[in-house]
Protein backbone atom coordinates (compact mmCIF):
# COMPACT_ATOMS: atom_id res chain seq x y z
CA UNK A 1 0.00 0.00 0.00
CA UNK A 2 1.16 3.49 -0.73
CA UNK A 3 2.19 5.61 2.21
CA UNK A 4 -0.31 8.31 1.46
CA UNK A 5 -3.84 8.16 0.21
CA UNK A 6 -5.00 10.18 -2.70
CA UNK A 7 -8.23 10.69 -0.82
CA UNK A 8 -8.61 14.02 0.88
CA UNK A 9 -11.78 14.21 2.82
CA UNK A 10 -12.33 16.88 5.39
CA UNK A 11 -13.65 15.04 8.41
CA UNK A 12 -17.20 15.94 9.22
CA UNK A 13 -17.65 17.96 6.11
CA UNK A 14 -18.18 17.34 2.48
CA UNK A 15 -15.10 17.50 0.35
CA UNK A 16 -14.45 21.22 0.11
CA UNK A 17 -14.10 22.93 -3.26
CA UNK A 18 -10.49 23.78 -2.41
CA UNK A 19 -9.79 20.09 -1.76
CA UNK A 20 -11.18 19.22 -5.16
CA UNK A 21 -9.12 21.97 -6.74
CA UNK A 22 -6.06 20.59 -4.97
CA UNK A 23 -6.82 17.06 -6.15
CA UNK A 24 -7.31 18.11 -9.73
CA UNK A 25 -4.12 20.18 -9.55
CA UNK A 26 -2.30 17.15 -8.17
CA UNK A 27 -3.45 15.14 -11.16
CA UNK A 28 -6.30 13.23 -9.53
CA UNK A 29 -8.98 13.27 -12.14
CA UNK A 30 -12.06 11.23 -11.46
CA UNK A 31 -13.46 10.03 -14.74
CA UNK A 32 -17.19 9.87 -15.34
CA UNK A 33 -17.04 6.06 -15.35
CA UNK A 34 -15.11 5.77 -12.11
CA UNK A 35 -17.49 8.25 -10.49
CA UNK A 36 -20.46 6.22 -11.66
CA UNK A 37 -18.89 3.07 -10.25
CA UNK A 38 -18.16 4.79 -6.91
CA UNK A 39 -21.78 5.94 -6.89
CA UNK A 40 -23.01 2.33 -7.06
CA UNK A 41 -20.76 1.28 -4.19
CA UNK A 42 -21.73 4.31 -2.13
CA UNK A 43 -25.45 4.01 -2.76
CA UNK A 44 -25.58 0.36 -1.70
CA UNK A 45 -23.86 1.26 1.56
CA UNK A 46 -25.98 4.37 2.13
CA UNK A 47 -29.35 2.74 1.55
CA UNK A 48 -28.50 -0.29 3.68
CA UNK A 49 -27.24 2.00 6.46
CA UNK A 50 -30.55 3.86 6.38
CA UNK A 51 -32.50 0.58 6.50
CA UNK A 52 -30.47 -0.86 9.38
CA UNK A 53 -30.62 2.27 11.52
CA UNK A 54 -34.39 1.70 11.78
CA UNK A 55 -33.64 -1.21 14.11
CA UNK A 56 -32.18 1.05 16.78
CA UNK A 57 -34.60 0.73 19.72
CA UNK A 58 -36.56 -1.99 17.92
CA UNK A 59 -34.22 -5.00 17.87
CA UNK A 60 -35.06 -8.15 19.88
CA UNK A 61 -32.47 -7.22 22.52
CA UNK A 62 -30.49 -4.11 23.38
CA UNK A 63 -27.21 -5.68 22.24
CA UNK A 64 -28.73 -6.04 18.79
CA UNK A 65 -29.88 -2.42 18.75
CA UNK A 66 -26.26 -1.54 19.26
CA UNK A 67 -24.85 -4.11 16.87
CA UNK A 68 -27.10 -3.17 13.96
CA UNK A 69 -26.56 0.51 14.75
CA UNK A 70 -22.80 -0.02 14.62
CA UNK A 71 -23.02 -1.90 11.33
CA UNK A 72 -25.14 0.95 9.94
CA UNK A 73 -22.60 3.51 11.13
CA UNK A 74 -19.75 1.64 9.42
CA UNK A 75 -21.75 1.45 6.19
CA UNK A 76 -22.52 5.15 6.41
CA UNK A 77 -18.79 5.75 6.70
CA UNK A 78 -18.16 3.74 3.52
CA UNK A 79 -20.93 5.65 1.76
CA UNK A 80 -19.45 9.01 2.76
CA UNK A 81 -16.07 8.08 1.30
CA UNK A 82 -17.46 6.66 -1.93
CA UNK A 83 -19.96 9.48 -2.48
CA UNK A 84 -17.42 12.20 -1.75
CA UNK A 85 -15.13 10.62 -4.31
CA UNK A 86 -17.91 10.21 -6.89
CA UNK A 87 -19.16 13.74 -6.33
CA UNK A 88 -15.76 15.27 -7.00
CA UNK A 89 -16.27 14.43 -10.68
CA UNK A 90 -19.36 16.61 -10.78
CA UNK A 91 -18.51 19.30 -8.22
CA UNK A 92 -21.03 17.84 -5.78
CA UNK A 93 -20.63 17.07 -2.10
CA UNK A 94 -21.61 13.87 -0.32
CA UNK A 95 -24.62 15.74 1.08
CA UNK A 96 -25.65 16.95 -2.39
CA UNK A 97 -25.66 13.33 -3.54
CA UNK A 98 -27.39 11.88 -0.49
CA UNK A 99 -30.09 14.50 -0.01
CA UNK A 100 -30.73 16.13 -3.35
CA UNK A 101 -30.86 13.34 -5.88
CA UNK A 102 -34.16 11.98 -7.14
CA UNK A 103 -35.01 8.30 -6.88
CA UNK A 104 -34.09 7.66 -10.51
CA UNK A 105 -30.61 9.07 -9.91
CA UNK A 106 -29.73 6.47 -7.28
CA UNK A 107 -27.75 3.40 -8.33
CA UNK A 108 -28.48 1.07 -5.43
CA UNK A 109 -29.41 -2.56 -5.96
CA UNK A 110 -32.88 -3.89 -5.11
CA UNK A 111 -31.56 -6.07 -2.26
CA UNK A 112 -30.57 -3.17 0.00
CA UNK A 113 -33.86 -1.41 -0.72
CA UNK A 114 -35.92 -4.31 0.60
CA UNK A 115 -37.91 -3.61 3.77
CA UNK A 116 -36.46 -4.95 7.01
CA UNK A 117 -39.27 -7.45 7.61
CA UNK A 118 -38.78 -9.38 10.83
CA UNK A 119 -35.39 -9.97 12.43
CA UNK A 120 -34.97 -13.18 10.41
CA UNK A 121 -35.35 -11.33 7.12
CA UNK A 122 -32.95 -8.58 8.18
CA UNK A 123 -30.35 -11.18 9.15
CA UNK A 124 -30.91 -12.99 5.83
CA UNK A 125 -30.31 -9.73 3.95
CA UNK A 126 -27.23 -9.04 6.12
CA UNK A 127 -25.88 -12.52 5.47
CA UNK A 128 -26.24 -12.25 1.72
CA UNK A 129 -25.04 -8.67 1.46
CA UNK A 130 -22.08 -8.93 3.82
CA UNK A 131 -20.76 -12.07 2.12
CA UNK A 132 -21.10 -10.31 -1.26
CA UNK A 133 -19.53 -7.09 0.03
CA UNK A 134 -16.67 -9.00 1.66
CA UNK A 135 -15.83 -10.76 -1.61
CA UNK A 136 -16.16 -7.44 -3.48
CA UNK A 137 -13.93 -5.37 -1.19
CA UNK A 138 -11.38 -8.19 -0.93
CA UNK A 139 -10.78 -7.69 -4.64
CA UNK A 140 -11.30 -3.93 -4.80
CA UNK A 141 -8.24 -3.48 -2.57
CA UNK A 142 -6.20 -4.32 -5.69
CA UNK A 143 -7.97 -1.78 -7.89
CA UNK A 144 -5.81 0.38 -10.13
CA UNK A 145 -7.72 3.33 -8.72
CA UNK A 146 -5.85 4.20 -5.52
CA UNK A 147 -8.74 5.92 -3.82
CA UNK A 148 -11.18 3.06 -4.38
CA UNK A 149 -8.50 0.64 -3.18
CA UNK A 150 -7.93 2.70 -0.02
CA UNK A 151 -11.63 2.93 0.82
CA UNK A 152 -11.99 -0.83 0.24
CA UNK A 153 -9.01 -1.68 2.44
CA UNK A 154 -10.41 0.45 5.25
CA UNK A 155 -13.94 -0.90 4.88
CA UNK A 156 -13.02 -4.56 4.47
CA UNK A 157 -11.85 -4.84 8.08
CA UNK A 158 -15.26 -3.61 9.22
CA UNK A 159 -17.22 -5.84 6.84
CA UNK A 160 -15.31 -8.77 8.30
CA UNK A 161 -17.13 -8.09 11.59
CA UNK A 162 -20.48 -7.56 9.81
CA UNK A 163 -20.21 -10.88 8.02
CA UNK A 164 -19.29 -12.71 11.19
CA UNK A 165 -22.25 -11.10 12.97
CA UNK A 166 -24.65 -12.28 10.26
CA UNK A 167 -23.18 -15.78 10.18
CA UNK A 168 -23.42 -16.19 13.96
CA UNK A 169 -27.08 -15.17 13.91
CA UNK A 170 -27.85 -17.39 10.93
CA UNK A 171 -26.43 -20.37 12.79
CA UNK A 172 -28.33 -19.52 15.95
CA UNK A 173 -31.66 -18.90 14.26
CA UNK A 174 -31.41 -21.67 11.67
CA UNK A 175 -30.36 -24.31 14.16
CA UNK A 176 -32.46 -22.85 16.97
CA UNK A 177 -36.13 -23.40 17.63
CA UNK A 178 -38.69 -24.53 15.09
CA UNK A 179 -40.03 -20.98 14.92
CA UNK A 180 -36.62 -19.30 14.51
CA UNK A 181 -35.73 -21.86 11.83
CA UNK A 182 -38.96 -21.17 9.97
CA UNK A 183 -38.49 -17.41 10.08
CA UNK A 184 -34.84 -17.55 9.03
CA UNK A 185 -35.70 -19.77 6.06
CA UNK A 186 -38.57 -17.48 5.08
CA UNK A 187 -36.25 -14.49 5.35
CA UNK A 188 -33.79 -16.15 2.99
CA UNK A 189 -36.54 -17.06 0.55
CA UNK A 190 -37.82 -13.50 0.50
CA UNK A 191 -34.47 -11.83 -0.22
CA UNK A 192 -33.28 -14.48 -2.65
CA UNK A 193 -34.94 -13.03 -5.80
CA UNK A 194 -32.68 -9.96 -5.41
CA UNK A 195 -29.40 -11.85 -5.10
CA UNK A 196 -28.95 -12.37 -8.83
CA UNK A 197 -28.62 -8.63 -9.53
CA UNK A 198 -25.48 -8.39 -7.38
CA UNK A 199 -23.52 -10.52 -9.81
CA UNK A 200 -24.46 -9.03 -13.19
CA UNK A 201 -21.65 -7.57 -15.33
CA UNK A 202 -22.62 -4.64 -17.52
CA UNK A 203 -21.09 -2.09 -19.89
CA UNK A 204 -19.75 0.14 -17.13
CA UNK A 205 -17.85 -2.79 -15.65
CA UNK A 206 -16.49 -3.67 -19.11
CA UNK A 207 -15.17 -0.12 -19.50
CA UNK A 208 -13.26 -0.24 -16.20
CA UNK A 209 -10.88 -3.23 -16.42
CA UNK A 210 -8.45 -3.27 -13.49
CA UNK A 211 -10.47 -0.59 -11.70
CA UNK A 212 -13.86 -2.19 -11.10
CA UNK A 213 -14.35 -5.69 -9.75
CA UNK A 214 -16.24 -7.95 -12.14
CA UNK A 215 -19.40 -8.92 -10.21
CA UNK A 216 -19.76 -12.30 -11.97
CA UNK A 217 -16.39 -13.36 -10.49
CA UNK A 218 -17.82 -13.09 -7.01
CA UNK A 219 -20.61 -15.59 -7.53
CA UNK A 220 -18.65 -18.82 -7.03
CA UNK A 221 -16.96 -17.84 -3.74
CA UNK A 222 -20.28 -16.33 -2.57
CA UNK A 223 -22.17 -19.55 -3.28
CA UNK A 224 -19.49 -21.67 -1.63
CA UNK A 225 -19.46 -19.80 1.68
CA UNK A 226 -23.22 -19.38 1.74
CA UNK A 227 -23.80 -23.11 1.15
CA UNK A 228 -21.39 -23.93 3.97
CA UNK A 229 -23.09 -21.56 6.43
CA UNK A 230 -26.62 -22.62 5.48
CA UNK A 231 -25.64 -26.28 5.69
CA UNK A 232 -24.33 -25.82 9.19
CA UNK A 233 -27.44 -23.84 10.12
CA UNK A 234 -29.69 -26.64 8.79
CA UNK A 235 -31.18 -24.23 6.25
CA UNK A 236 -31.80 -24.72 2.55
CA UNK A 237 -30.31 -22.61 -0.24
CA UNK A 238 -33.54 -21.11 -1.62
CA UNK A 239 -34.83 -22.38 -4.92
CA UNK A 240 -36.50 -19.17 -6.03
CA UNK A 241 -36.37 -17.43 -9.41
CA UNK A 242 -34.59 -14.05 -9.73
CA UNK A 243 -36.88 -11.03 -9.69
CA UNK A 244 -36.95 -8.32 -12.33
CA UNK A 245 -34.57 -5.67 -11.00
CA UNK A 246 -33.24 -2.30 -12.06
CA UNK A 247 -29.72 -3.49 -12.91
CA UNK A 248 -28.19 -0.34 -11.48
CA UNK A 249 -30.20 1.86 -13.79
CA UNK A 250 -32.89 4.44 -13.20
CA UNK A 251 -35.55 1.94 -12.12
CA UNK A 252 -35.91 0.99 -8.48
CA UNK A 253 -38.05 -1.18 -6.27
CA UNK A 254 -41.28 0.37 -5.03
CA UNK A 255 -39.70 0.70 -1.57
CA UNK A 256 -36.94 3.18 -2.34
CA UNK A 257 -39.13 6.26 -2.69
CA UNK A 258 -40.47 5.94 0.85
CA UNK A 259 -36.99 5.40 2.23
CA UNK A 260 -35.68 8.49 0.44
CA UNK A 261 -38.61 10.59 1.58
CA UNK A 262 -37.69 9.87 5.18
CA UNK A 263 -33.94 10.19 4.66
CA UNK A 264 -34.09 13.45 2.73
CA UNK A 265 -36.96 15.34 4.36
CA UNK A 266 -34.97 17.29 6.96
CA UNK A 267 -32.30 18.43 4.52
CA UNK A 268 -34.95 19.51 2.01
CA UNK A 269 -37.11 21.22 4.61
CA UNK A 270 -34.15 23.32 5.77
CA UNK A 271 -31.85 23.84 2.77
CA UNK A 272 -28.33 24.79 3.75
CA UNK A 273 -28.80 23.86 7.41
CA UNK A 274 -25.94 22.13 9.19
CA UNK A 275 -26.18 19.97 12.27
Amino acid at each position, binding site marked *: *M*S*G*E*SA*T*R*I*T*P*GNALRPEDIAEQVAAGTKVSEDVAEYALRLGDDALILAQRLSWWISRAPEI*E*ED*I*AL*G*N*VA*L*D*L*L*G*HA*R*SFLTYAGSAWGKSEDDLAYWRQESEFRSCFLVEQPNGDFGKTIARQLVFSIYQHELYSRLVDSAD*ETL*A*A*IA*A*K*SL*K*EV*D*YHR*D*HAIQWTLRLGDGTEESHRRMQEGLNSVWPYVHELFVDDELIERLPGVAVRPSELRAPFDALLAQVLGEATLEVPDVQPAMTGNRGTRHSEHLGYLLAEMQVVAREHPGATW
Partner: protein
Amino acid sequence: MSTNTAVRPAEAPAAKAWDIAATICDPEIPVLTIEDLGILRAVAVVPGEYDAAGTPAVEVTITPTYSGCPAMDTIRDDIVAALGRHGYADVRVKLVLAPAWTTDWMTGEGKAKLEQYGIAPPTGLAGVRTGPVRLGLSVKCPRCNSLNTREITRFGSTSCKALYQCNDCKEPFDYFKVL
Protein backbone atom coordinates in the same frame (compact mmCIF):
# COMPACT_ATOMS: atom_id res chain seq x y z
CA MET B 1 1.15 -6.70 11.48
CA SER B 2 1.64 -3.33 9.92
CA THR B 3 4.93 -1.53 10.25
CA ASN B 4 3.39 1.77 9.24
CA THR B 5 3.99 3.36 12.60
CA ALA B 6 3.72 7.13 12.62
CA VAL B 7 6.98 8.90 13.47
CA ARG B 8 7.43 12.19 15.25
CA PRO B 9 9.21 14.47 12.80
CA ALA B 10 12.92 15.09 13.44
CA GLU B 11 13.18 18.74 12.46
CA ALA B 12 12.32 21.26 15.16
CA PRO B 13 9.37 23.31 13.80
CA ALA B 14 7.34 20.24 12.76
CA ALA B 15 8.28 18.37 15.95
CA LYS B 16 6.96 21.25 18.03
CA ALA B 17 3.64 21.19 16.21
CA TRP B 18 3.53 17.39 16.58
CA ASP B 19 3.96 17.67 20.35
CA ILE B 20 0.99 20.05 20.51
CA ALA B 21 -1.22 17.90 18.30
CA ALA B 22 -0.17 14.82 20.29
CA THR B 23 -1.81 16.23 23.43
CA ILE B 24 -5.30 15.97 21.92
CA CYS B 25 -7.36 13.23 23.54
CA ASP B 26 -9.96 11.03 21.96
CA PRO B 27 -13.33 12.51 22.98
CA GLU B 28 -14.78 9.08 23.76
CA ILE B 29 -11.74 7.73 25.60
CA PRO B 30 -10.32 10.81 27.29
CA VAL B 31 -7.33 9.00 28.78
CA LEU B 32 -5.85 8.27 25.37
CA THR B 33 -4.23 10.82 23.11
CA ILE B 34 -4.53 10.59 19.37
CA GLU B 35 -0.83 9.71 19.40
CA ASP B 36 -1.46 6.75 21.76
CA LEU B 37 -4.21 5.55 19.45
CA GLY B 38 -2.20 5.89 16.27
CA ILE B 39 -4.74 8.32 14.81
CA LEU B 40 -2.07 11.01 14.47
CA ARG B 41 -0.12 10.01 11.37
CA ALA B 42 2.05 12.96 10.42
CA VAL B 43 2.74 16.62 11.07
CA ALA B 44 4.59 18.71 8.51
CA VAL B 45 5.41 22.34 7.96
CA VAL B 46 4.05 23.58 4.65
CA PRO B 47 7.15 24.86 2.83
CA GLY B 48 7.19 28.58 2.18
CA GLU B 49 3.76 29.30 3.65
CA TYR B 50 3.23 31.45 6.70
CA ASP B 51 0.29 33.00 8.49
CA ALA B 52 -0.07 36.77 9.03
CA ALA B 53 2.16 36.64 12.12
CA GLY B 54 4.91 34.78 10.27
CA THR B 55 4.27 31.40 11.92
CA PRO B 56 4.64 28.53 9.47
CA ALA B 57 1.52 26.82 8.13
CA VAL B 58 1.27 23.24 9.35
CA GLU B 59 -0.45 20.21 7.93
CA VAL B 60 -1.64 17.55 10.37
CA THR B 61 -2.55 14.14 8.98
CA ILE B 62 -4.98 11.90 10.84
CA THR B 63 -6.70 8.64 10.00
CA PRO B 64 -10.08 7.39 11.28
CA THR B 65 -10.29 4.29 13.45
CA TYR B 66 -13.61 3.23 11.89
CA SER B 67 -15.07 4.65 8.66
CA GLY B 68 -18.09 6.11 10.40
CA CYS B 69 -16.30 7.31 13.54
CA PRO B 70 -18.02 10.55 14.57
CA ALA B 71 -15.12 11.50 16.86
CA MET B 72 -13.14 12.65 13.83
CA ASP B 73 -15.00 15.98 13.66
CA THR B 74 -14.19 16.79 17.28
CA ILE B 75 -10.60 15.68 16.90
CA ARG B 76 -10.14 17.93 13.89
CA ASP B 77 -11.58 20.93 15.75
CA ASP B 78 -9.47 20.17 18.81
CA ILE B 79 -6.27 20.03 16.75
CA VAL B 80 -7.01 23.36 15.10
CA ALA B 81 -7.88 24.93 18.47
CA ALA B 82 -4.82 23.55 20.31
CA LEU B 83 -2.38 24.67 17.64
CA GLY B 84 -4.21 28.00 17.45
CA ARG B 85 -3.58 28.55 21.15
CA HIS B 86 0.13 28.11 20.46
CA GLY B 87 0.14 30.69 17.71
CA TYR B 88 -0.46 28.52 14.65
CA ALA B 89 -3.15 30.34 12.70
CA ASP B 90 -2.87 28.32 9.49
CA VAL B 91 -3.57 24.67 10.34
CA ARG B 92 -4.68 22.18 7.73
CA VAL B 93 -6.03 18.86 8.91
CA LYS B 94 -5.90 16.12 6.35
CA LEU B 95 -7.73 12.81 6.65
CA VAL B 96 -6.17 9.77 4.99
CA LEU B 97 -7.63 6.30 4.60
CA ALA B 98 -4.49 4.43 3.51
CA PRO B 99 -2.82 2.68 5.10
CA ALA B 100 -5.94 1.64 6.99
CA TRP B 101 -5.82 2.09 10.75
CA THR B 102 -5.21 -0.94 12.90
CA THR B 103 -5.16 -1.52 16.66
CA ASP B 104 -1.58 -2.74 16.11
CA TRP B 105 -0.58 0.95 16.02
CA MET B 106 -1.74 1.59 19.55
CA THR B 107 1.28 2.33 21.74
CA GLY B 108 2.19 0.15 24.73
CA GLU B 109 1.68 3.17 26.94
CA GLY B 110 -1.75 3.64 25.38
CA LYS B 111 -2.73 0.05 26.13
CA ALA B 112 -1.61 0.42 29.75
CA LYS B 113 -3.62 3.65 30.16
CA LEU B 114 -6.65 2.02 28.58
CA GLU B 115 -6.53 -0.90 31.01
CA GLN B 116 -6.15 1.44 33.97
CA TYR B 117 -9.19 3.34 32.75
CA GLY B 118 -11.26 0.15 32.83
CA ILE B 119 -11.27 -0.77 29.14
CA ALA B 120 -9.52 -4.00 28.20
CA PRO B 121 -6.94 -3.22 25.49
CA PRO B 122 -6.89 -5.19 22.22
CA THR B 123 -5.26 -8.58 22.72
CA GLY B 124 -3.17 -9.93 19.88
CA LEU B 125 -2.48 -8.56 16.45
CA ALA B 126 -4.89 -7.75 13.64
CA GLY B 127 -3.10 -10.14 11.30
CA VAL B 128 -4.17 -13.07 13.43
CA ARG B 129 -7.81 -12.49 12.50
CA THR B 130 -7.20 -13.16 8.83
CA GLY B 131 -5.57 -16.61 8.95
CA PRO B 132 -7.39 -19.87 8.18
CA VAL B 133 -7.92 -20.47 11.89
CA ARG B 134 -9.14 -17.54 13.90
CA LEU B 135 -7.24 -17.68 17.12
CA GLY B 136 -8.72 -15.46 19.75
CA LEU B 137 -6.70 -14.77 22.87
CA SER B 138 -8.48 -14.51 26.18
CA VAL B 139 -9.53 -11.02 27.13
CA LYS B 140 -8.34 -10.04 30.58
CA CYS B 141 -10.77 -8.40 32.99
CA PRO B 142 -9.41 -4.90 33.70
CA ARG B 143 -10.79 -5.03 37.25
CA CYS B 144 -9.69 -8.38 38.66
CA ASN B 145 -7.25 -9.55 35.92
CA SER B 146 -9.12 -12.82 35.44
CA LEU B 147 -8.84 -14.43 32.01
CA ASN B 148 -12.15 -16.18 32.58
CA THR B 149 -14.30 -13.72 30.63
CA ARG B 150 -16.98 -13.93 27.96
CA GLU B 151 -18.15 -11.78 25.08
CA ILE B 152 -21.66 -10.39 25.62
CA THR B 153 -21.87 -8.50 22.38
CA ARG B 154 -19.28 -7.80 19.73
CA PHE B 155 -20.66 -4.34 19.03
CA GLY B 156 -20.48 -2.07 22.05
CA SER B 157 -20.89 1.54 23.14
CA THR B 158 -18.70 2.83 20.29
CA SER B 159 -17.61 1.32 16.97
CA CYS B 160 -14.24 0.31 18.39
CA LYS B 161 -15.49 -1.56 21.45
CA ALA B 162 -17.15 -4.86 22.34
CA LEU B 163 -18.93 -5.63 25.60
CA TYR B 164 -17.51 -8.37 27.82
CA GLN B 165 -18.30 -9.77 31.23
CA CYS B 166 -15.94 -11.26 33.78
CA ASN B 167 -17.08 -14.71 34.92
CA ASP B 168 -15.20 -14.33 38.21
CA CYS B 169 -15.94 -10.82 39.49
CA LYS B 170 -19.13 -10.67 37.38
CA GLU B 171 -18.46 -7.10 36.26
CA PRO B 172 -19.25 -6.15 32.68
CA PHE B 173 -16.52 -4.19 30.90
CA ASP B 174 -15.63 -2.66 27.53
CA TYR B 175 -13.07 -4.34 25.30
CA PHE B 176 -11.25 -2.42 22.59
CA LYS B 177 -11.55 -4.96 19.80
CA VAL B 178 -8.79 -5.93 17.41
CA LEU B 179 -9.12 -4.31 13.98
